[in-house]
């Protein structure tokens, strides 16, 4: 894509803050990220790091008690932060599609999967019944379902996890959205199926220019699939940038620790490693870096004041005061080897 004009921005989150428990605590603070046409952006982090809430906010599907307290969400050129229920109804399906972790629970258990797909086509695109059926079979084929005619009539309980996820993807892309949000879409699948789904998403990106926001806690999958990755910790973005760069040379202690734990990249697995300590409670007031407590490379400056993002390259940032410190990597390697 070099030399081409920069692709359009499909999703933009600007300084997003999300509160939970009816405003009692802030679970996501100051998240800024963007997804462009034909780009697959991964969001990685532990459970509770705020990545799920962020993507729910981008979908307009925040659970009860949660709200966007600050910041903006934009889809293509429109500001959708305060979009009405009706507005989201229009946007869903035709602009943004979504797939989730447990596909069988996101489909109506008593209807055939085919009818749930044709329903979307008939309602959103006003296709007549026969046409919708034909298009549904076509979509099922595109997502790699063998025997699409047969699958059409089956109910979710009769299909395996991998097949159901393909069905969900088929439904999600059926009305031609520009953005697909995938929240832990491959987490519940076994490895071979995972690979197939990843392949499918890549194909969709290549053929349709589909932009994907891919949430996962599995770095290996992210490495396989994504162009860029955004690392979450305790409700903040701690590092973001091109996936190869980050994996090759992480510039934030947390990212580095994650990579070591997942044995992705340079680090080969010799023993089971954990990052000692726990992430802070949601809403805990911490001055300075939120990872400082568990960070092997922390210095006084880390705890002094809130840390801003340090720009490390055209699209690479890190929220670490020592990001540009060339000895950072060595420090971490030694510290962790010592434990």
């Amino acid at each position, binding site marked *: 894509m070099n030399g081409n004009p920069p692709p359009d921005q499909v999703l933009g989150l600007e300084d997003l803050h999300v509160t939970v428990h009816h405003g009692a605590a802030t679970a996501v603070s100051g998240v800024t990220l963007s997804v462009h046409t034909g780009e697959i952006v991964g969001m990685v982090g532990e459970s509770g790091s705020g990545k799920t809430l962020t993507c729910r906010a981008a979908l307009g599907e925040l659970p009860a008690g949660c709200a966007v307290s600050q910041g903006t969400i934009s889809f293509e050129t429109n500001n959708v932060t305060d979009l009405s229920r009706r507005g989201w109804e229009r946007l869903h399906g035709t602009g943004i599609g*979504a797939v989730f972790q447990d596909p069988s629970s996101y489909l109506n258990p008593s209807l055939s999967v085919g009818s749930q797909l044709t329903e979307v086509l008939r309602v959103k695109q006003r296709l007549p019944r026969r046409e919708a059926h034909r298009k549904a079979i076509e979509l099922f084929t595109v997502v790699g379902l063998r025997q699409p005619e047969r699958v059409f009539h089956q109910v979710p309980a009769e299909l395996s996890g991998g097949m159901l996820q393909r069905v969900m993807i088929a439904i999600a892309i059926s009305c031609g959205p520009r953005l697909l949000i995938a929240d832990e879409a491959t987490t519940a699948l076994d490895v071979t199926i995972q690979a197939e789904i990843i392949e499918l998403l890549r194909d969709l990106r290549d053929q349709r220019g589909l932009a994907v926001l891919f949430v996962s806690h599995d770095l290996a999958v992210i490495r396989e699939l994504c162009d860029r990755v955004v690392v979450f910790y305790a409700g903040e973005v701690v590092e973001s940038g091109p996936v190869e760069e980050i994996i090759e040379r992480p510039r934030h202690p947390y990212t580095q620790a994650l990579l070591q734990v997942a044995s992705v990249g340079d680090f080969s697995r010799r023993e089971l490693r954990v990052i000692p300590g726990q992430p802070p409670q949601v809403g805990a007031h911490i001055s300075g870096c939120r990872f400082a407590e568990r960070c092997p490379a922390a210095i006084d400056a880390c705890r002094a004041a809130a840390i801003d993002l340090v720009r490390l390259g055209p699209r690479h940032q890190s929220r670490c005061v020592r990001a540009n410190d060339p000895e950072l990597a060595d420090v971490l390697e030694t510290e962790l080897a010592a434990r």
Partner: protein
Amino acid sequence: MAVVDLTNLNLPGTAGAISPRRRRGRSVASQVGRGIAILVPILVISSFITYSLGALSNSNPAATILGQDAATPAAVAHLDKVLGLDKPLVVQYWDWLTQAFQGHLGTSYFTGIPVSQSIAQRLPVDLSIAILAVILAVLIGGTAGTIAAVRRGGLFDRGVTMVCSAVSTLPAFVVGIILVVIFAVTWHLLPANGYVGPTGGIWPWLEHIILPSLALALQVAADIARQLRTSLVSVLEQNYITGARVRGLPYRRILLRHALRNAAGPALVILGNDFPLMLAGAVAAEVVFSLPGLGQLLLEAAQSRDIPVAQGVLLVVSAFVIVVNLVVNTLLNVLYRTGDGIVS
């Protein structure tokens, strides 16, 4: 939450499996067949119990028919033979049942009118009321339950819950009386009694059946509303509702086609189970509103110890209940298509 039994799933890739569509079509029909096959023995047993009530009676039917004076032992013995009362109970029962299937339910001891004729005459009354009552119960209960669930925690929800608890304890005949008091006696809006068939004009017919139907419907409506609210609240929290939303489907469609469809099951079961209660209430309604229905017929038969009539009415009514049960089960199967269409 669902009242379904996921047995015998047809897993994909099973060699030689029939295509799902054909299989499901067959299973609904076979489901009905299976239902009938099970209910037949039940019908037989309950009709046997019905018939043997007569045998428990200590009065001699022949003597009753002949009347006090003419009931000499010889005459009684002779009539016994004519009526077939000297045969063993099981044989009598079988004769009676086979006759019943042909539509002959015997003759009243007193009026000499064939029982089936009396029943046929009165059945439209009960049917009108029962059908209208079911419609009203579903409409009122369904709407109230849905709105209560959708606006959960709101004023309507709490109001409905309170009203439902109150109405639930009120038996149909009390409700009927209250309705009569309000609408007929105090406000003179609707007639307090009597029945006019639809042949006498649609409007008068409706006027006469609306109060009794309402009396029957309210208790069931309360049960339905309560159950529907609970089920719907739980369904609306399910992930597939979120799934439907992120596909951009309009809210009303989600509510009707996805949420209600899955939440309606238990409420439907309640309807099926409350149906006998409705029938009982129909008897009360007949008394309160002076309607010439099966209940009155039965009461008269009870007073005059007219056994064939009593047996006939009981048979018809219990057959009715069994049929309703079958219909409810079939509907549940249609609503909840699982792999093999079996709803327990």
